[in-house]
């Protein structure tokens, strides 16, 4: 049974490859279905949002992370716990705005784009836009409205992949009347 020997080391990586390849198939399909890249970006963001609002539950259940004190702590949890858990990478948190309401996640290597090259006619496609939607959706479920977008992308020739996140506001919980 020599074939079994390297399975355990491989299976984690394989799982992320399954995700990467499936995501690739999805983006390919979207590019076929929509005429322009803007529409594809929008669709990816929407799907990401749907994933995010569900994924946060899984995240809270698994990670036993408590309530964050401030946005800086949130940033750390996203980078060190969430990205590590689901994508197997740990982006660095940098470029804080003076007010502390905006920061960048720098990804040295973006697992979603592992086997990807963008053809010339898709220069405005934000390939990994699903991530933005997912972050937005997940944070919305913990009462934080944020704006997320790609500032740099290695697929478009930049040196690193940079996701810019801006805190907009705390979403007030509206409890139904009479419900304490």
């Amino acid at each position, binding site marked *: 049974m020599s074939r079994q020997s390297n399975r355990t080391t491989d*299976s*984690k990586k*394989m799982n992320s490859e399954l995700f990467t390849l*499936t995501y690739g198939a*999805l983006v390919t399909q979207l590019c076929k279905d929509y005429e322009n890249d803007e529409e594809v970006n929008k669709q990816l963001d929407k799907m990401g949002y749907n994933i995010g609002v569900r994924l946060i539950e899984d995240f809270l259940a698994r990670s036993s992370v408590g309530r964050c004190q401030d946005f800086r702590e949130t940033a750390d949890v996203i980078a060190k716990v969430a990205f590590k858990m689901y994508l197997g990478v740990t982006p660095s948190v940098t470029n804080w705005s003076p007010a502390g309401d905006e920061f960048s996640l720098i990804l040295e290597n973006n697992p979603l784009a592992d086997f990807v090259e963008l053809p010339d006619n898709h220069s405005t496609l934000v390939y990994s836009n699903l991530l933005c939607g997912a972050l937005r959706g997940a944070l919305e479920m913990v009462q934080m409205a944020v704006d997320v977008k790609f500032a740099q992308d290695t697929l478009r020739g930049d040196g690193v992949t940079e996701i810019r996140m801006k805190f907009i506001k705390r979403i007030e919980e509206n409890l139904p009347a009479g419900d304490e």
Partner: protein
Amino acid sequence: MAHEAPFQLLHSELIHYICKTADGADSENGRSVTKLENMGFRVGQGLIERLTKDTARFKDELDVMKFICKDFWTCVFKKQIDNLRTNHQGIYVLQDNKFLLLCHMSAGKQYLEHAPKYLAFTCGLVRGALSNMGVKSIVTAEVSVMPACKFQVMIQKL
């Protein structure tokens, strides 16, 4: 560590996207199932190339099928196939008693009509994997009670 949750959710979104335009007409539903199957095929092809790059050469067809049931299934669905049967004439039945992609649905028969959409991608995945290992096949799935399901692989002799 990468979890299966993102893949499960992505898979659901994929189905939602492909099928949302196809409400109603049966022919439309059939087309979206085909689309999902084709996407799975492509992914299966890529995946098996990565997975088999350090493995020894396969002895025969049964050896290939065992690889699918054990290593491939464990990689993708976190468990092995529970039961593999064959008639030794090119038909294999792979039974999974707790199929990952049906686990988040209500167990039993309530949503049985929706099962084909949730299995099409996997059928393609298996067909794609087999195809790159030199085995041409037709893969279909069958569910009687969720979350158990059976995949039937019909080998196409060249």
